[in-house]
């Protein structure tokens, strides 16, 4: 089973989209003299994409729709940002992850209301919360961040980045360019060289990565990234997502079906309360907890080579 990529799965995830309803923030609309305040842009965006890749088009749409609003037309791309329910959205996170994080925070609504409503902002860039770009460099910043993630993932899998650095210059360029142009085949021709197989001499035969590149997101908490081995070296048992989550986040996750977890209640009294165990969400989907982590990593990672798992309560 090792090394093979299930292209059916990879391609379906690649084509996954999330419908967005984008409107201009009322304060920015007032400040920039936007007349059509109730106007929204409906856009279907690939879950793997980044907000910086749509920012220019969004600004142009509202400038044109507002009768060629010159002030909107002159807004620098580096000043464009997005927010949802008052929270700035990180442009270096994939759109699908942002959507999962936003919807996971709302326990009352088990299924995300679509379209996902976000607000575009053209003023008052929150430099304390979002990475500030430089004028006209947002695309190269996004590709740099993307390549850094791929190298970080490579280091987790192999303990070095020889696989990425071993790619030809053309293949390295192709990773980002085929991603940005949404060319599945071209992207996977290169990406398979990174994702398939493991590191040499590790785990007897090199089938398994050293650690799985994965981050877990829990609302209100710091991002969790642990050196997680995908296999028990003695029994060759492949750890499941549920086993890993209950191990690294026992306060939030239990691998027992219908299980409960105990932790201090957030109201500061220090009282220990039981909560229903969280549900792992990836690409908008509830992931079966018995899915082997190594399979998930190979087939269901984002193009940045990381699994970005959101815990929903």
């Amino acid at each position, binding site marked *: 089973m090792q090394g093979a990529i299930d292209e059916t799965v990879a391609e379906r995830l690649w084509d996954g989209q999330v419908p967005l309803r984008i409107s201009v923030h009322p304060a920015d609309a007032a400040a920039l003299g936007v007349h059509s305040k109730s106007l929204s842009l409906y856009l279907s965006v690939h879950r793997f994409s980044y907000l910086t890749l749509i920012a220019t088009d969004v600004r142009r749409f509202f400038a044109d729709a507002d009768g060629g609003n010159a002030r909107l037309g002159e807004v620098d791309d580096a000043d464009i940002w997005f927010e949802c329910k008052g929270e700035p959205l*990180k442009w*270096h996170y994939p759109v699908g992850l942002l959507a999962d994080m936003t919807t996971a925070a709302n326990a009352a609504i088990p299924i995300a209301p679509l379209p996902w409503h976000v607000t575009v902002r053209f003023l008052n860039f929150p430099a304390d919360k979002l*990475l500030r770009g430089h004028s006209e460099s947002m695309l190269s910043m996004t590709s*740099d*961040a993307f*390549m*850094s*993630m791929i*190298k*970080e993932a490579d*280091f*987790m899998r192999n*303990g*070095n*980045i020889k696989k990425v650095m071993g790619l030809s210059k053309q293949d390295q360029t192709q990773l980002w360019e085929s991603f940005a142009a949404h060319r599945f085949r071209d992207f996977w021709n290169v990406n398979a060289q990174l994702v398939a197989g493991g590191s040499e001499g*590790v*785990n*007897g035969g090199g089938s*398994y990565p*050293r*650690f799985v590149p994965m981050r*877990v997101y*829990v609302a*209100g*908490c*710091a*991002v*969790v*990234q*642990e*050196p*997680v*081995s995908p*296999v*028990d*070296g*003695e029994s060759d048992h492949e*750890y499941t997502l549920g*086993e*890993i989550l209950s*191990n*690294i*986040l*026992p*306060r*939030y996750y239990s691998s027992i079906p219908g299980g409960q977890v105990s*932790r201090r209640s957030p109201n500061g009294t220090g009282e220990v309360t039981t909560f229903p165990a969280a549900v792992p969400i990836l690409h908008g989907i509830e992931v079966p907890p018995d899915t082997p982590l190594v399979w998930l990593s190979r087939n269901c990672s984002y193009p940045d080579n990381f699994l970005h798992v959101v815990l929903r309560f």
Partner: protein
Amino acid sequence: MQSGDANFDVPHHGKFLVTVNPTSMSAAEQGPATSPLASPSVPRRPSSAATSNAEPNAKVVVRFRATGNAPILKQNFYKITASQKFQTVISFLKKELHYKQQQSLFLYVNAAFAPAPDEIVGNLHKCFATDGNLIINYSTTAAWG
């Protein structure tokens, strides 16, 4: 003055990073490493694993290495609160080198990749430290990645 590799002591009189009381590390709290994390199949598990963030004020050791013509530090390793973001490391290093915050300085982990400024130092330490030290190379020009 470079410290030798054999010297793992962190100077107590040195300039340590500012400690800000962390507020959001509860997700990273965990008990002692158990089976999936302590797999014997992992040949060189970072010894930093012991410094898991059971304590919200836990600190980790960061070791700086200058690359190319980057200026060197008088002291090249420091303790930093694990819950800090990598941005704190960037700002601190610029301050130590008397750089303006707007001046560009490139920081890499293990001479391999540039973490995003919002990555958690404790996570980087857990996943990438060598002998308990998170190695950070810095350069005045883009060196790796």
